[in-house]
């Protein structure tokens, strides 16, 4: 089976880049700010592949570049260098060579994103159902009755009370907001879903229910996912393979069990030891 996503050499540098940016930053220099030009190397030479239906975890401390990777793949940011091939049915798309309209099409039709902060993923000015409707409308579903039906199905699936469908997500609890975000992301049945710190800031029982939901969705729909988190519990539960990032570099990658049971890098060992 061919991977659904092939990322090679993904690099994102903020600032006026100089030739020594990549040589003078990274874990071995203990910084991601280039001492020569002051640019911030958010991610450098990140490469990985993702199989259809697989959940890949990216973990690391804050500022390690894990969100940057997902945001460039979701076209929220443009990468400085690198390539990413997305295979969809028989077609393969070179993500960073597409024009704006093609990127928007993929984003709306084939990708889903759940942000840590529901403010980014939801429009609080409109109702929860409206948020889902927006995504369905972007997919050229133009039938009011069908939109209502589909939105209430999705909210039922994600355990949001349908009776509250027409309320603003502002009035929802954090866990419910996250579930509305997941419903919105799933509206178009995307083959690829990005989850950026979805459970951070939620209490443990709500976290558990959201993680259950994510696993159920993966079993039901076979959605491939990239899960970004600093929470080892989330990684252990969801991801079959994991990348560990520090200062914009992937320092370790492999099967999740292997990484958590037998970490090779000193940083990973510290990370695993500090939580277990």
């Amino acid at each position, binding site marked *: 089976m061919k991977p659904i996503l092939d990322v090679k050499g993904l690099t994102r540098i903020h600032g006026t880049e100089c030739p020594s940016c990549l040589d003078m930053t990274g874990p071995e220099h203990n910084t991601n700010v280039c001492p020569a030009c002051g640019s911030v190397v958010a991610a450098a030479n990140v490469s990985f592949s993702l199989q259809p239906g697989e959940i890949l975890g990216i973990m690391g401390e804050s500022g390690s570049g894990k969100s940057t990777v997902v945001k460039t793949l979701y076209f929220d940011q443009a990468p400085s260098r690198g390539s990413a091939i997305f295979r969809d049915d028989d077609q393969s798309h070179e993500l960073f060579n597409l024009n*704006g*309209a093609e990127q*928007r099409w993929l984003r709306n039709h084939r990708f889903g994103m759940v942000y840590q902060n529901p403010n980014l993923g939801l429009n609080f000015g*409109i*109702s929860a*159902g*409206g948020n889902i*409707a*927006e*995504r369905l*409308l*972007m997919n050229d579903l*133009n*039938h*009011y*009755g*069908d*939109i209502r039906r589909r939105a209430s199905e999705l909210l039922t699936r994600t355990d949001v009370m349908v009776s509250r469908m*027409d309320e603003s997500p502002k009035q929802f609890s954090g866990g419910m907001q996250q579930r509305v975000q997941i419903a919105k992301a799933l509206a178009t049945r995307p083959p690829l879903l990005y989850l950026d710190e979805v459970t951070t800031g939620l209490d443990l029982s709500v976290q558990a229910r959201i993680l259950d939901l994510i696993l159920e969705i993966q079993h039901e729909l076979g959605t491939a996912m990239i899960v970004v988190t600093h929470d080892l519990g989330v990684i252990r539960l969801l991801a079959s393979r994991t990348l560990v990032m520090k200062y914009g570099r992937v320092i370790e990658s492999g099967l999740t069990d292997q990484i958590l049971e037998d970490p090779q890098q000193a940083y990973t060992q510290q990370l695993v030891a500090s939580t277990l």
Partner: protein
Amino acid sequence: MNPDYRLPHSQDSYGFGFLDEFAKREIRRVILKAISIPGYQTPYASREMPMGRGFGTGGLQLTLSMIGPDDTLKVIDQGSDDSVNAVNLRKFAELTCPEVSTTESTTEASLIQTRHRVPEIPLREDQVLNLQVPYPDPLVIVEPSEAKRKIMHGEGDYARLLTKLYEDLVKFDEITISHRYPTRINGHYVIDPSPIPRYDVPGLHQSRALLLFGAGREKKIYAVPPYTNAEPLVFDDVPFRTESFYTADGQRRACDRCGSIDSFLDELNLDDGSKAWQCSDTDYCNRQLARTEAGEATQ
């Protein structure tokens, strides 16, 4: 307006039609571009006019750059030839365009400048309608950044506008936009058709006359060329509705003045607290009245 004031067009300071020839040429070129890309908001250098922006300077610049001595001009405001805006703009055109005749008759006019209405009498191919536009961009209610709005227009991305309609249906069981109804032109660009009532929106579809929209303050010109599709934005299962003039017992209200039952009516509050309905298009109303009176005279 000072009735004794005359623009010095006898001297060389002002040419025919107040605008200088460079300005006219630019606006004509922009009009051509707007016609070539139906519904696209073409930017132009809106000139200072001797009246505040927002008083119809966009429509007026269109009119003044197109008008010639053999044209007949009609200016209306909310359907009426006699309201302040219409009278002042007509006077200005009379002052600055010698030999141009003005009229109140829709059929006699070759050029019609209008605020907030499309005339009731269907226009012909040899007529041009210039609409004064306060807010040209329908996306402004969902996206504050103009740069992003331009991209959305370019990609035909109107999902968020439809989301607004969805929210209206959820809250009120009805789309609550009374005027400036977003309308898709020629299958791509969605325009703000200026504050015409919903009643006039179907009139834009496959119109025989050229429809031009000028926004002076926002510096945009756009067009609905003759015989072009203009479809109001709706859901597949929620048909577009115009204003209803039916009473609770199913009677179509008639104009209290001319008795017409097929025109757009204004609701008037009378001094005694009661209400009256009258055609908003005064030329149409006068015409109907004359016809009824002539009919009565022959009987």
